[in-house]
């Protein structure tokens, strides 16, 4: 077992030595692999950031209740109190019309325009949040009907539509990223495969001699597989560095943009888990590309006398 391990270690070191002896071509191959891996990594992290920052809304569906104009605040407070008695309700906030106007004036930037209006166009409103375990569509619908049946209520709005849309958009983007990832993965396979193919032909004499002295196909193939593995892992490491750098550069502007919308949205930095996945994927692609090239081309090289 230890002999087996030692032999593999030797092959790996040998492959690393070969790569180190041709630094320029090695660097270019690694760079191409890294770029192909960076793109899906950065996109996936972006989508994940959006998902994690919207995650808290995704399941908590609010119901907005708008009363008819002229319904007195006392009546609205009474209805809010009765709603709080109902099961499956986590919270009911009463938003008086004056407060709604104040908030709107502060947040919308239309303060001056509002001054032109006579009186308050906004009604009293309720912000009803159901308990998370009671937020399934059927119960939401029955809640909506219950509230809508009150004569004082003008409109009941279940705020789940935008969450559905956001999720649909995120889902679409995930699929696009998945598609891009598959294509770029095939690209990495092709790059590694072609590099290994050239390497095989430039080492033709060595392969012939090795086969002549009884080296099996597995023995001849092994250093090339390690070369592919090293290309893949090196490319993945560089891709992680590139993705991390890109996210660092984007972090401050994104935060500023998010803040201007009153959001605390932040881009996620790649963590150990992402690094692990990236290294695993890079290594697997590298070794697979090398395997495909070796399977095709090594068999064609037979010793001549």
């Amino acid at each position: 077992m230890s002999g087996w391990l030692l032999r593999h270690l030797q092959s790996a070191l040998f492959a690393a030595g070969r790569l180190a002896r041709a630094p320029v071509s090695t660097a270019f191959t690694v760079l191409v692999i890294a770029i192909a891996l960076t793109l899906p990594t950065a996109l996936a992290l972006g989508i994940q950031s959006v998902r994690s920052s919207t995650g808290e809304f995704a399941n908590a569906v609010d119901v907005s209740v708008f009363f008819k104009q002229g319904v007195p605040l006392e009546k609205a407070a009474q209805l809010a109190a009765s709603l709080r008695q109902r099961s499956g309700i986590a919270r009911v906030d009463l938003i008086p019309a004056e407060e709604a106007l104040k908030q709107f004036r502060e947040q919308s930037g239309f303060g001056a325009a509002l001054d032109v209006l006579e009186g308050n166009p906004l009604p009293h409103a309720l912000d009803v949040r159901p308990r998370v375990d009671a937020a399934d569509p059927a119960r939401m619908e029955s809640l909506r009907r219950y509230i809508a049946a009150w004569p004082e209520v003008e409109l009941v709005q279940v705020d789940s539509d935008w969450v559905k849309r956001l999720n649909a958009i995120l889902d679409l983007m995930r699929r696009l990223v998945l598609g891009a990832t598959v294509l770029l993965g095939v690209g990495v396979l092709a790059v590694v495969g072609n590099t290994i193919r050239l390497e095989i032909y430039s080492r033709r004499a060595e392969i012939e001699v090795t086969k002549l002295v009884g080296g099996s196909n597995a023995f001849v193939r092994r250093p090339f597989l390690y070369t592919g593995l090293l290309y893949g892992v090196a490319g993945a490491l560089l891709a992680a560095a590139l993705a991390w750098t890109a996210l660092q550069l984007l972090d401050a502007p994104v935060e500023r943009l998010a803040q201007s919308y009153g959001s605390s949205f932040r881009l996620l930095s790649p963590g150990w888990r992402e690094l692990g996945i990236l290294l695993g994927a890079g290594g697997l692609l590298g070794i697979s590309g090398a395997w495909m090239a070796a399977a095709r081309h090594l068999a064609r090289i037979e010793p001549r006398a």
Partner: protein
Amino acid sequence: MIRFDRASKRYPNGREALSGATFEIREGEMVFLTGRSGAGKSTVLKLIALLERPTRGMVMVNGSNTSALSSRRIPAFRRQLGVVFQDHRPLTERSIFDNVALPLHAAHLPLKDIDKRVRAALDQVGLLDRAQALPLELSVGEQQRVGIARAVVVKPKLLIADEPTGNLDPGLSMEVMGLFRRFNEVGVTVVIATHDIDLVKASGLREIIIAEGKVQDPAGEHLVVPSMEAER
């Protein structure tokens, strides 16, 4: 050890390099294959080393019918014989030690055994002190001895050599022949293809002459090839 039974080899270009060759080389023998360039000597060696298979007839080497061996068994087959070539083809990037160690690595020997056996083989050809040199730092004669060390490091029962003295002056040729004779004395079957007739005559050893793809085996005529006997 080696038995050719009406073995013929026709290459894809249509040239018949060997036609109906029948001869036997017994275990422990040292035999020369002679003949002009292109007469078929190299083809005979290729058929023995399983670089080629006969298109007709049969070649038996160390109990294996080369036509019947699956390609997966070829590496193991080649590991039991040592091959020396005229162009010794060292791997120029690797030290003499690593060149000689290659067949042992291919055979997955433990590293400490590899070290011991490579040193022994280099010692036998007188190159132990050059172990860490690169092949191109050596003279032609020394490079040829590296090739011999690489062939014998696996302790083969059969050693085949194609023009091993082709690039060497008479003094070095004698030296290399001396090496082969020493391996033969410890029981290794040795087959050497050469056109150096003087060397062959001086050795007094058995000579298999190949001319235009046909075998003349003056000393081996008394040998009976069993399968032919059965058919007669």
